[in-house]
């Protein structure tokens, strides 16, 4: 039986964004407590560049998703699974936009403009404001914890489908096969 897969751009964007998030998240946790050094400044910049890249790529993903129908789910998928997966995906999209956005605003509030790859300056949407900076730091952290939990749920679902249900849900998002 041939498996209906996502389109190649959708698969590429999914894994690229996943890779960037898996780099940016631990980097963000690690860099936070470092003493001030050139390395710290560099890591903060790399983290911010990764975050802006995630945001840009997710905007592309949302546009692609809105204009391309995903492959159908296996027949007999229970309604509750469909509902939960749709809600989880919706929340993941929202968080993949909201997490970088909160980081960008936090950075502006703390008085550090974001300059993508050190070349493209992003406007400061909020001015320098210590209290707002603290608040946005908490928002950025809270959103990341929710993102972490939802990614965990996403991965748990993959394991369930692959090893318990033994269906082809995961294959839909894997590269390599022919899209028939």
């Amino acid at each position, binding site marked *: 039986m041939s498996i209906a897969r996502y389109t190649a751009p959708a698969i590429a964007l999914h894994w690229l964004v996943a890779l960037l998030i898996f780099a940016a998240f631990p980097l963000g946790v690690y860099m936070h407590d470092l003493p*001030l050094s050139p390395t710290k400044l560099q890591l903060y910049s790399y983290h911010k560049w990764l975050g802006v890249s995630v945001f840009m790529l997710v905007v592309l993903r949302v546009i692609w998703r809105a204009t391309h129908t995903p492959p159908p789910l296996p027949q007999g998928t229970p309604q509750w699974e469909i509902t939960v997966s749709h809600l989880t995906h919706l929340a993941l999209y929202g968080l993949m936009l909201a997490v970088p956005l909160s980081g960008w605003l936090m950075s502006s509030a703390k008085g550090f403009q974001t*300059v993508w790859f*050190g070349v493209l300056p992003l406007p400061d949407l909020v001015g320098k404001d210590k209290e707002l900076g603290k608040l946005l730091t908490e928002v950025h952290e809270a959103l990341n914890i929710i993102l972490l939990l939802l990614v965990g749920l996403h991965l748990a679902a993959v394991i369930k489908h692959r090893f318990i249900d033994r269906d082809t849900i995961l294959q839909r998002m894997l590269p390599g096969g022919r899209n028939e």
Partner: protein
Amino acid sequence: MNKLLSALLLCLASSAGAAEFKQLLPAESSVTFAYKQMGVPMEGRFGKFNAQLSFDPAKLTTAQARLDIALASLDTGVAEADQEAAGKLWFNTAAFPTASFVSSGIKALGGNRYEASGKLTLKGRTLDIVTPVTFSTNGAKGAFDGAFSIRRLDYKIGEGEWADVSAVANEVQIKFHLVVTATPGKK
């Protein structure tokens, strides 16, 4: 009509000549700096500085200025960075508490534009600098405005790991806005 005009001009010329600016008003003045960190423009200021000067636009040859900046008053807007900047690798304010500029000459460039040259001493090193300056008067007050760039490594500002200019750029722009008051000129 012509007489009136020449009388007016004379009046203006003599009033300008009578004004000698000597007293700095620190509260109305500012000395700020701008640099790039990982390509990101950053700004900071010095909170405490003082000047001894005598400046009469009509007598530039005798004009002189000395500006002293208390380096411990450096304010980047980030407490962690301020602490680091006071340390040995940066300004080493314990050993070198003051940066000073001593003028050696001022040249008229036309209008209210001038070029000031002098020596900047920072962290025990003294180098020649030249900066454009504009001078404008407002009632009894005058204001010097100008900006010039230095390379921080010329003064060993940021040693060791901080000598890496890819993190904190070498070029630092210093901007000054110095408000001074006129004292009646001695005739």
